[in-house]
């Protein structure tokens, strides 16, 4: 599409931005251009690439969505990149995985944290290497929803199992995932479920199960303090078997409260009959059934999905036209998540002008997205040193995101990250003097000659790589326009394009000299001075584009 067409389309849409579609969840049937394709890809993944946008445009919405909503296989597990000949890991050789290592008191203390760090770096590595699916974004959604802090759990084996559980079930059944997470060793540890016993009931998990994971605190949520206490009694007796990895729960019926548990009117005064011996485990199924029989569960999770993927403001219109019908659909589908995501992401509402570009990027969208958009090359594990460097670089991106406010694997608390739940600011919480400065500094460093450096490992943008993916790099104006379309997915004024273009043509008498310079480079790419001429100018251009407010939105 020509730029003028793109602009006029946007103008047209903007005028009708306040007219809401009658049936918000009806399939979208409007134009399918780079902008819609980019919108879908950026929301469902972390950043996107020029090639992915082109591909999606050819495939069309339905096929693109079908491809995005698949669960690709688990990546190879995280590895020991931390041990040294002087201080070996007693159970795991360098370069092999620790996820099946036994719980061993002889493990040097610093390696508990080293394994967690390696696991967390690897997790971010999975985001950087994500295939063409929603899986990593959706796993982050569940990580934020069923939040567990790796640092509190303390065992990387358990955190890896937790990640695998969320990832494998990310498009599956919400209700069965809720049961599985209840018995997940990391969660049992994180919310003290493993300490909950008939003589000393611990309400921690029973409370968050209802308040955060299922019922929520929406307007029609009316479970009581007594319900928390009763649920805590149902949940007594679950322990972690510490001797066998993979870790699993065990049900210790001697610690289970076998009395009857009576719930409030919100749950229709349901009584869960106490059961002896191992039958006590059945009470959990009854508890989950009881909770999921309320309409609040579906609405709560739909609101969270909406705030995560669409926008944080849920007004009456959105509640009535998007949340309620989506929740009904989820109940009809027996809590299968994939069908409602197909509906939401293929809906007229998802492609309304007012839905586009309005999400403030999470730190992972920002940091990982930037790396993917520029196809940044990370170290390859060609040898031990390469492997270590790869994890250091992944860990570098993890720490960039952490400094911007999202420490993947270690949410601030059980409610997840504030930007996804705290009224009234929500996503705006990602942006503050501190995180913004960190983001700007990342953009500055990554476009500088030395790049970013972590423990001696450097990586940076190669501006040539992105530029070659654009439709006509010889034409300075076209180059800027294409780059803005990819990085902002929002058209700018002529003055702003000119402002950016000045980065390319500064020092040249007119625009055509850029074409000459690019041509000189392309005809002799190994000539350092020809490369330097274009590289310096492209770095300045991309730094400028990345530093504007527009780049923080998707």
């Amino acid at each position, binding site marked *: 599409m020509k730029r003028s067409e793109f602009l006029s389309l946007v103008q047209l849409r*903007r005028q009708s*931005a306040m007219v809401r579609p009658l049936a918000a969840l009806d399939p979208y049937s409007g134009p399918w251009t780079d902008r819609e394709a980019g919108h879908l890809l950026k929301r469902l993944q972390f950043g996107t690439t020029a090639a992915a946008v082109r591909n999606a445009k050819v495939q069309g919405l339905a096929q693109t969505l079908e491809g995005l909503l698949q669960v690709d296989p688990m990546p190879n597990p995280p590895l020991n990149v931390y041990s040294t000949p002087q201080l070996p890991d007693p159970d795991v050789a360098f370069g092999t995985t620790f996820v099946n290592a036994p719980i061993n008191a002889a493990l040097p203390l610093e390696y508990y944290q080293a394994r967690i760090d390696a696991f967390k770096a690897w997790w971010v590595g999975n985001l950087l290497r994500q295939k063409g699916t929603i899986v990593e974004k959706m796993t982050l959604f569940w990580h934020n929803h069923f939040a567990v802090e790796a*640092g509190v759990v303390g065992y990387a084996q358990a955190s890896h199992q937790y990640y695998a559980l969320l990832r494998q079930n990310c498009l599956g059944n919400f209700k069965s995932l809720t049961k599985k997470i209840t018995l997940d060793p990391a969660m049992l540890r994180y919310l*003290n479920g493993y*300490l*909950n016993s008939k*003589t*000393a*009931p*611990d*309400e*921690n998990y029973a*409370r968050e199960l209802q*308040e955060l994971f299922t019922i929520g*605190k929406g307007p029609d949520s009316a479970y009581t*303090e007594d319900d928390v*206490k009763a649920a805590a009694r149902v949940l007594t007796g679950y322990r972690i078997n510490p001797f066998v990895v993979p870790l699993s729960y065990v049900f210790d019926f001697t610690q289970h409260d076998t009395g009857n548990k009576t719930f409030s009117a919100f749950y229709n005064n349901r009584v869960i009959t106490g059961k002896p011996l191992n039958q006590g485990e059945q009470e959990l199924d009854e508890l989950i059934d009881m909770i999921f029989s309320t309409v609040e569960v579906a609405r709560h999770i739909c609101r969270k999905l909406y705030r995560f993927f669409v*926008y944080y403001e849920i007004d009456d219109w959105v509640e009535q036209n998007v949340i309620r019908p989506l929740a009904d659909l989820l109940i009809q589908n027996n809590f299968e998540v994939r069908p409602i995501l197909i509906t939401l992401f293929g809906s007229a509402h998802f492609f309304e002008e*007012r*839905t*586009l*570009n*309005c999400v*403030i990027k999470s730190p992972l969208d920002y940091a990982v997205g930037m790396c993917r958009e520029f196809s940044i090359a990370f170290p390859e594990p060609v040898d031990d040193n390469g492997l270590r460097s790869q994890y250091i670089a992944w*860990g570098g991106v993890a*720490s960039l995101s*952490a*400094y911007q406010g999202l*420490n993947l694997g*270690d949410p601030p*608390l059980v*409610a997840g990250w*504030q930007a996804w739940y*705290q*009224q*009234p*600011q929500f996503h*705006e*919480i990602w*942006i*503050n*003097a*501190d995180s*913004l*400065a*960190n983001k*700007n*500094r990342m953009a*500055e460093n990554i476009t500088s000659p030395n790049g970013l450096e972590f423990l001696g490992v450097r990586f940076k943008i190669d501006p040539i790589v992105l530029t070659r993916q654009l439709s006509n790099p010889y034409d300075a104006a076209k180059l800027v326009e294409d780059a803005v379309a990819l990085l902002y997915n929002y058209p*700018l*004024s002529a*003055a*702003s394009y000119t*402002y950016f273009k000045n980065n390319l043509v500064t020092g040249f008498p007119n625009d055509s000299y850029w074409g000459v310079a690019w041509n000189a480079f392309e005809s002799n790419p190994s000539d350092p001075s020809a490369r330097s001429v274009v590289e310096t100018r492209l770095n300045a251009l991309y730094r*400028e584009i990345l*530093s*504007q*407010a*527009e780049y923080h*939105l998707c």
Partner: protein
Amino acid sequence: MKRRKFIQSATAGLVVPTLVGGFSAKAYAESPLLSALLQPGTDTDHVLVVIYLNGGNDGLNTLVPLDQYDHYVRARPTVHLPLAGLLPLNGFGSLAFHPRLGGFQQLFNEGKLTIVQSVGYDKPDFSHFRSTDIWASASDSDEVLGTGWLGRYLDSEYPGFPAGYPNPQNPDPLALQIGSNLPLLFQGPAAQMAMNLSNPDIFGAWPSGIDDPAPNTPYGKELQFIRTINRQSSTYADAVLSAFFKGNNLATYPAGNYLADVMKVIARLIKGGLKTRLYLVSAGGFDTHSDQILDQKDKGMGKHGDLLKMLGDASFAFQRDLEAMKLDDRVMGMTFSEFGRRIRDNASGGNGAGGTDHGAAAPMFLFGKRAASGVIGSNPVIPANVSVNDNLMMQYDFRSVYTSVLQQWLCVRQPALQSILLRDYQLLPLVKDGGCLTNVRELDSGNKGIDLRILTNPMVDRTDVDMVSNGGRALLQLFGPMGSVVKTLYRGSLSAGTHRVSVESEAYPPGNYYLRFQQQSDQVTRHLIIAR
């Protein structure tokens, strides 16, 4: 190069818990243009440092009521603290601090620490998130407010913020959250009033650039928001950095103490001339469901002891630093937490360790040269037989503390006081001479002659209750076992003398109840047992 220096000096001693530095922070903006002319900012240079104890601090093990010690031990078979080792308070024989709160003990004995007993609110909520929001917004339990009490305070002082800020009269951030994240506290009606600061090293080059008009869509709204923060942050960052380099610490702070690391920076910024008057710092980990104590051998050890030591030692060093700087006239600290913990312990943790679940009222602490000396309120009542549901009754609404701090330390007058807190609350004498008021009475531990006598206790159907009044507005409330008001028995004006009312058992289930009689800033509470 300058910034490099900053890291070395400021953050060399910083605890880095994981990947992220101990510091991490924020600032916001966007407000309609109100008339900044209407109301010039109040002329005070008082600084308030709010310390948020995140997770729900266990008040009963922070400050042990010795007159209830037998009941306390019975209610907490696992986590109760042994008498030996508790730290006494000068002049208050019925109270003692946790063995590791030596910092607070010393401040108290020097007359620089105020204890407000059993602060909470009616209908306590046991969710961390909801209760934190209630404390931050100063709302009722069943009311949702989208703004914070300090946000509303700053909005009333600086209407129109951030339009026109910073400016020559107000060059510095209005509030700083250092290493904390409690956005609701400083949320004003139209703007976030606080700036967040993590490691000041991060203040780099602030880009300028394109400024295409923002469309009237959610995209346009967020775009403007980001641009505003960007512009504002760069100016404030320079101000903070410059104060940091001008200031220097004069006292030694304990090493390996996260709160001390942060408070050290605050003292240095104040010394460096930063005009910011509100600071928030927070420390997490107070959610002691398990391992509150480590084992039965030394109960001061364990999570809770470590946290209290951090709090006490940091506050003490901070106070000494300000004294050496001769700035202690200007600064006051205040703690708060979303709730206290249940009276009964839960034995969670095994092997002699144990914890406590979410509860209700707990003490608040204020410290500084001008903090009133002594204890406000009476010891919490621990019944002989405590069920797992029983909670401590509140003696003071937390908004009474807020309103008193605003009035006596931040010099807010009516009608602003009421518009910030949305209602009138009981005023407590929290600040000694040198605050904003000249006629606040010195504190003493008594209750100025008011009294409350229950004639039949335990009661079955009814009892008479005598209110002994000093004259003035009075309130008599009946609280239930969970800490909520079940009935207001009297509200109105009372002449000096004795006035009788009756309490009917109505349909109340039997259990531990409390009567609270309040007149002006004085009050008494009595334990009432309803039996069958």
